[in-house]
């Protein structure tokens, strides 16, 4: 089975991720996921693609730490985090988070916590490529 935390260049299947998550236990009653996708429009500009830069040495370990912290903090049964790098087109997936718990509340809360923490703590930067030029994305709070 694929690692629960991955940085990938190719697209991935949510169904496969969910199956991998469910494989860890049949006591999972709720699975919350968050999928971040590339938009074709941002801050009033058309976006044709998104490119990434990443401090690899730190990005993957930090994502692994996030998963472990989320599992402990929300008493999750399991969690998975996948982030794409390389070149992503409008509509493509960028990041996928799945959190499985016995009940729905911790699964949903963990999912929210992980994506917020990932944006704050994982050293990845994205640049939007538009017909008018390129621009690094300024993070929103």
């Amino acid at each position, binding site marked *: 089975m694929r690692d629960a935390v991955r940085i990938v260049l190719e697209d991935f299947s949510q169904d496969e991720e969910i199956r991998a998550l469910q494989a860890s236990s049949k006591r999972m009653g709720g699975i919350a996921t968050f999928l971040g996708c590339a938009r074709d429009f941002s801050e009033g500009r058309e976006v044709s693609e998104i490119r990434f830069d990443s401090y690899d040495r730190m990005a993957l370990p930090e994502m692994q730490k996030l998963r472990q912290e989320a599992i402990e903090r929300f008493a999750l049964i399991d969690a998975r985090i996948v982030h794409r790098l390389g070149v992503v087109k409008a509509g493509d997936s960028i990041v996928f988070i799945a959190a499985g718990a016995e009940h729905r509340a911790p699964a949903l809360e963990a999912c929210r916590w992980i994506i917020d923490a990932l944006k704050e703590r994982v050293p*990845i930067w994205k640049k939007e490529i538009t017909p008018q030029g390129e621009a690094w994305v300024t993070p929103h709070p």
Partner: protein
Amino acid sequence: MVTVLFFGPVADRVGVGRLDVEFHAGMCLQDVFSGLQPQYPEAFGLVSLAAVNGAHATDMSLTLTDNCEVVFMSKFSGG
């Protein structure tokens, strides 16, 4: 030697992704920052986070060791 890495918008403004800085005993994170900042004021204007050897470093008085890896980073925009 201290290896200083840059990524994303900071790398764009520095013009390179890596600079080597001479190490001296007792050197701290702030010394590296202050040594480079005047040469790259635009790039360092974006810096809001630092890491040493792959770990977040919040204390700029952190003492460095020879051959360590320092990164000055702008706010992340992954996810």
